[in-house]
């Protein structure tokens, strides 16, 4: 593996981190806004990767041979991704209205949204996810059976749903949607699958059949994400209730409205139309381009989900935080991917040497 992507990732992490650190001295709330919105994107990749690994343990399929190594490397980023939440945990009142006493007294759901319970739940998510990540790294994609694949998927479905309620939905504590958790999960699946496909293509490990399967899975993920996102919109729009519609008013008016249209095109219609045309699905460049588009659109969606709900709206620290987190995460990802490849290369070599030795014994 060449060192250039690795040093570029470290450079992006340092530059982005420096911008955020300087910004934190001037306007900490603006930095945190961008930080949480970018965190929503980066935490989704290891979580989505874990779900895909467990699903592959249960179902199998030739797409795994190409996608499992990058998915495993993504899961290895989870501890770092969880650490990135720490600044938010220290400064809850800056982001979450329910953490401010003046607002909290008017809230009916204070029994759920309060700082001690919030910390407790976050600790539970972290413990469950780290345990499952260990299982995934030990068992998944190694030809071993994984007894925790099915219970792990159920656990992930529940914990990710509640984590998305706690971390992301509760920036607007009076608003609630039961579809929100699954909508976030579908976005995470889409992001993780797009990055795994992109890494597999760039690593040169895919054949035509695998690319076709990965393309078909991407179509399924796009449809799931689009269906859930649109259903939430349709229900809220139809009901037009005063305590529900403000969420969409903030996200569909002004510049954010254009972001919504762009997101529906770039994460929904455009990649869907591209992927149902089989030459795109089979070609290396076409599929890689679709994956890049999906990742960019998913980042935009994460920003769109969180920043309009916060006081101040868009923050220019969001791109900086994205670079800081993405650089650090990519560095770990590339390092793990390289380590995995060296490992598999070494075991291949060992079997070859063992074979040669056996032959030597036979001839001798």
């Amino acid at each position, binding site marked *: 593996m060449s060192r250039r992507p690795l040093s570029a990732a470290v450079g992006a992490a340092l530059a982005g981190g420096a911008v955020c650190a300087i910004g934190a001295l001037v306007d900490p709330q603006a930095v945190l806004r961008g930080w949480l919105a970018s965190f929503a994107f980066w935490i989704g990749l290891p979580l989505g990767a874990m779900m895909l690994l467990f699903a592959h343990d249960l179902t199998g399929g030739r797409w795994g041979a190409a996608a499992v190594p990058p998915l495993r490397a993504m899961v290895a980023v989870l501890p770092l991704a969880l650490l990135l939440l720490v600044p938010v945990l220290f400064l809850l009142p800056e982001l979450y209205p329910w953490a401010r006493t003046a607002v909290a007294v008017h809230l009916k759901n204070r029994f759920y949204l309060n700082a001690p319970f919030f910390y407790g739940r976050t600790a539970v998510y972290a413990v469950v996810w780290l345990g499952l990540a260990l299982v995934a790294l030990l068992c998944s994609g190694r030809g071993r059976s994984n007894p925790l694949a099915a219970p792990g998927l159920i656990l992930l479905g529940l914990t990710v749903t509640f984590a998305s309620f706690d971390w992301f939905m509760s920036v607007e504590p009076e608003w609630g949607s039961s579809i929100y958790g699954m909508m976030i999960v579908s976005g995470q699946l889409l992001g993780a699958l797009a990055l795994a496909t992109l890494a597999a293509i760039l690593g040169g490990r895919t054949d035509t059949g695998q690319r076709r399967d990965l393309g078909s899975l991407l179509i399924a993920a796009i449809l799931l994400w689009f269906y859930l996102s*649109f259903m939430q*919109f*349709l229900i809220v*729009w*139809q009901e*037009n209730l005063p305590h529900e519609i403000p969420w969409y008013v903030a996200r569909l008016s002004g510049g954010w409205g254009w972001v919504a249209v762009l997101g529906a095109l770039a994460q929904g219609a455009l990649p869907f139309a591209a992927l149902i045309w089989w030459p795109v699905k089979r070609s290396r460049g076409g599929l890689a381009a679709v994956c890049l588009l999906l990742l960019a659109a998913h980042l935009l969606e994460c920003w769109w989900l969180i920043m309009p709900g916060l006081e101040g709206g868009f923050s220019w620290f969001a791109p900086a935080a994205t670079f800081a987190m993405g650089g650090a995460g990519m560095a770990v990802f590339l390092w793990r991917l390289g380590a995995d490849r060296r490992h598999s290369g070494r075991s291949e070599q060992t079997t070859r040497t063992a074979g040669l030795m056996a032959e030597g014994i036979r001839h001798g």
Partner: protein
Amino acid sequence: MSAHRGTGHTVRGTLAAFDSPDAMLEALRHLRQEGFTRLEVYSPYAVEEVDDLLGRKPQALPLIVVAAGVLGAVGGFFLQYWGMVLSYPLNIGGRPLNSWPAFSTTTFELAALAILLIGFLAFCTICRLPRLYDPIFDAPGFEQASQDRFLIWIAEREGRDDTELLRRLLPHGEGVHIDEVPA
């Protein structure tokens, strides 16, 4: 041949039945190399490469399906637009007359319905279905094509006796069964 009008098989031929798709593909490759052109494959499921080996060109079915989808979506949306906006405007809960989010599910359903109906009919037409009788149905063991056998039908070439050539080309022994098919 008036009794078999409309069927493809008005000539005599040979039918080779294989247990595995790979053996069938291998034999098909040899047959193509020897210049056999009038071939037909019957299998319980679509085997990859067969279309390439038989020289079949991609059909227009995907385009027909896309066109049907567009027709169904446009028609479905217009049906609701015409009803709600042009023909009988009705204020429902203060929502705009052209409530496109509310129209979207029906639009999708009608697009799916059009795709299904038109796509099914187009598929049948392209596959020359429905066909109630074909002489090949009389070949012993032909019904296994819809179970677990992979069959190749080789048309008799006019003025040539290929018996010797076919005996050489087609494998013998386990997993293969060869029969004559009358016209």
